């Protein structure tokens, strides 16, 4: 599994689940690279803000109560007149529920 984290939360030993690319789609750090202090420092100088790292935890690093997720799902479904037909649409809906849930805590 993978998880998005802020660079400030990166620590030594974490493993990249997605490559770090520059603006021209060139790979700066490849998938599977293990972070050390030097690499974290370099990422800071490149102004990288978020990283995708390998993790046993959920893709969504905030835990929301089932009640909040159900409210958000219901709010979204009331505006949707279509049902998801493929994996990417399921993934989009799931991420939209989490975006909406995040707003409950802001």
């Amino acid at each position, binding site marked *: 599994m*993978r998880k*998005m984290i802020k660079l400030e939360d990166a620590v030594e030993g974490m493993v990249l689940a*997605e490559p770090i*690319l*520059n*603006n*021209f*789609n060139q790979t700066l750090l490849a998938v599977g690279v293990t972070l050390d202090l030097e690499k974290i420092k370099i990422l800071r100088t*490149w*102004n990288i*803000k*978020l990283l*995708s790292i390998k993790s046993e935890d959920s*893709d*969504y690093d905030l835990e929301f109560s089932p009640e909040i997720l159900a409210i958000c799902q219901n709010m*979204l479904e009331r*505006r*949707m*007149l*279509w049902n998801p*037909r*493929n*994996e*990417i*649409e399921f*993934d*989009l*809906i*799931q*991420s*939209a529920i*989490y*975006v*909406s849930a*995040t*707003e409950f805590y802001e």
Partner: protein
Amino acid sequence: MSSRLVNSNELINKVREFPTLPTIYSSLMDLMQNPRTTSIELAHLLTQDQASSAKLLKIANSAIYGLQGRINTVSQAILYIGFDEVKNIVTALTIIKLFNTVHSRNEINPVDLWKHSIGVGIITRQIGKSSGVRNLENYFLSGILHDLGKLVFLKMIPTEYSQVMEYSINNKVTIREAETKLLGITHTVIGEMLTEKWRLPNSIKNAIRYHTTGMIDNTFDHLVGTVHIANIVANMYGMGYSWENIVPEPNVEIWDKLNLPDKYFTNNYKYITMEFDESLSLLLNLRQ
């Protein structure tokens, strides 16, 4: 008797009389069309408008281009992000400013629409990048301008456009369907006409005209398809408010063509929303 609220031919004539873009834009276009133009000449033109050039530098240094803090002059901005992208930022700022005098009407607020449009711009660029597009020129700007026609309607026929929105809510149809029913012309067509008047590139014109279907006459176009998806994503993520109360259905064929990796949105939603928050203040606070 027709149930239309306005005469669509009169609307078309009003669009033809719409203001042209300010002189700085046409001077910029003239310079860009000359292959001998240097970045120094271009920078000289842009720095004549200090407010715009300051804003240009802030945007060039934002997360959108991933070069934060490295760009100190307009010449550097041109060097790092390219002539065309600088032109696109100036175009976006110019057009946002041009519509700054459009006022809210009931629930229809232009600032909400700009927020939605900025969200679409960010997602369009992000999807383009993730699906391997090397030349991302016009991706951000196409997203930002995709709903231009709605602003034209709000400026020209605010009362009637309120009724269009009311109709779409009461009948659970898209704004485009409500426009067709009550106005006989859609924001996509009006937007396309304005891009022609302003001589914006064809790729942007197509994105505005076809973003609701995602295809140009049943033919896939990467930018048009991406704006189509980005528009739906921004709507679902609650980025601003496009005056659309239902989530339009994605054109399923476009997913296959974009070929995004598994769990694409799960892995990117945080980055997208963060970039959105950062860009809002940069693009919408025109007094800075």
